[in-house]
């Protein structure tokens, strides 16, 4: 038998005095416990805002038996378009 366990969490923040400053930060993680190894895929998402932009960052990671073997990050500033 193999076991898969999935974890997800999201945290939203808002500031009534500064509506331009909000954020969404989250993580998804899938842990695969196989007969000969453990693999963990995980992703970290962060979107923070200011008055003009969405500040985006996403990191995808892969761990084998607890050791990071791959990681890649995407990061961009995206202008708000009537949002």
């Amino acid at each position, binding site marked *: 038998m193999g076991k898969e366990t999935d974890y997800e969490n999201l945290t939203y923040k808002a500031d009534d005095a500064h509506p331009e400053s909000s954020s969404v930060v989250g993580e*998804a993680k899938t842990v695969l416990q196989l007969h000969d190894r453990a693999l963990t895929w995980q992703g970290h998402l962060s*979107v923070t805002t200011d008055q003009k932009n969405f500040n985006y960052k996403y990191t995808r990671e892969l761990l084998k038996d607890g050791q990071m073997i791959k990681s890649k990050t995407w990061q961009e500033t995206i202008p708000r378009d009537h949002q």
Partner: protein
Amino acid sequence: MNRSTVPALLSLLACLGFAAEAPSPAAYGVRIETGWIPMKDGVRLAVTLYMPDGAKPGERFPGLLEYLPYRKDDATAARDYPIHSYFARRGYVTARVDIRGFGASEGVPTDREYSEQEQIDGEQVISWLAHQPWSNGSVGMFGISWGGFNSLQMAMRHPPELKAILAVDATAELFHDDVHYIDGMAHIDEFELNMDMAPGMTGAPDYTLDERILGPRFDAPPWSLLYLKHQHDNSFWRSQVRPYSEIKIPCFLIGGLLDGYRDSIPDMLELTKAPVKAIIGPWNHTFPHDAVPGPQIEWRDQAVRWWDYWLKGRDTGVLPDAKLTIYMQHWHPPDPKLTNVPGEWLQEDGWPPREAHETILFPQRDHSLAEAQPASAVHQLKYIPSIGVESGFWWGELLSDPRPVDAFSLVYDSAPLTEDLAILGRPQVLLQASATAPLADWFARLSDVAPDGTVTQITGAGLNAAQRDSTSAPRDLEPGKMYPLTIKMHLTAWTFPKGHRIRLAISNALWPMVLPTPYSMTTSLQLGGKEGSRLALPVVPVRGKMATAFSPPQPSEERPDIKSENFPWPGEWTIERDEANGKTTVHWSGKAAEQYPWEKKLTTKT
């Protein structure tokens, strides 16, 4: 012909020998086979076939396709079996196919959901199914959510072998109605988290780390980044779909009054030229046989009647079926743990409902809601970006009492009703409104206020006021200028009991469903005058209970070799308010686990 004559006529026809055929019985065993479907570019898509076991020599079957990026050999394996085996036992070969680049399928992940590549492949899959030795040449397509979306999309492309579809909780409105821009406003939830990670995984049971397979998947850009670059309706969102009017094959639609995609069903009933049959229950984003809240119903027997007629040529009597069977919700207290929504089934012969009429109610200066046009007045509202948690996450799920949101909204209550009042449709609000900022969202929510003050939110909707004239050409507001803003609330069916009040609540935030607009502001609502702010309710007669017609769910077959624990959604929600500094944090978490027989060969026979 009135409602009471229809059953009598059907009974008469039955007596005269025109009785419909019974749907296909469970006459077969189930045999599971796995294989590959070759695409023209050499990529192979992985398929699990649920075959009728015990077929006679030469017997042919229709194919049923469910086509998803959610991995068939792990993520959906337990969910797939009770549905696919049900159809296989009744003489259908069902195919559960992983989309290119996902799960067990080969190739590089598609660059977005519902991509052109996904749809081109889908056409080839349908053709492949229709040309297998076991095939009778007819293919149906079905699914919930993604599988419903792409069933609609494939129907719009007219592959010749695709004869009918069954779409559950689906829409073709990819900008306004999907989860990236709910009502046209930015939304981020756990779906983004999942779909950003999913392309990076390799398939079960090997989960290979071979860089030739893993590398392109792991390096596939996250879709949420792409979606954040397309913040208004345009060809990016329109290119994957065609108008509902282009669907030429019969569509069986199932939706939920607590599902965010429910508005597609009245749209399709009005716009689709092909036969459309729909069931809308009081469900969230679930199949009806395991819906929470319920009542749960068996839908697979209805599906077999549908498939039998359109794919096997058996007259199972689906044509005289009502076009729409919908659940009229009765009052219930606000309770996220409610297991069964009280109410009754109604039938309609089309859309809009035959006997619906509009009742107009005007917000009054004293914050009442009444049929009389009010004297001119202006009500102002300070924008609080952090309100909205209690009003839900996508205009669907069962909620707690929304009074914490109402407290920071403009609220208008009717007098206690002197008799029951039923509504069926999409309530509409016209606001004459202005803001002191160039960008503002407005939200309108409709609730039922019980005599003890308890509030049950029924429906609502939002409007990004920059999209007031067009979702595709947003424009800043001129601060201080009054604009007419129309908000069409999401589909509902609800009976307000005598003695209860109707509540309309207006706000400028509904967070965290929608990311806050970035300017501090005060908004104004103009009351009174010929074109003054108003609420239009789609009122229908209060009807007696109809003798329907759905079976309770049959016991579902489960794969004994897979053990599931929990489901991530709805998970746990907490809210923290720093009252001193006006800062709010909402935290959500979910967890699930499954055990799989990965060392066993997947081919089984039951």
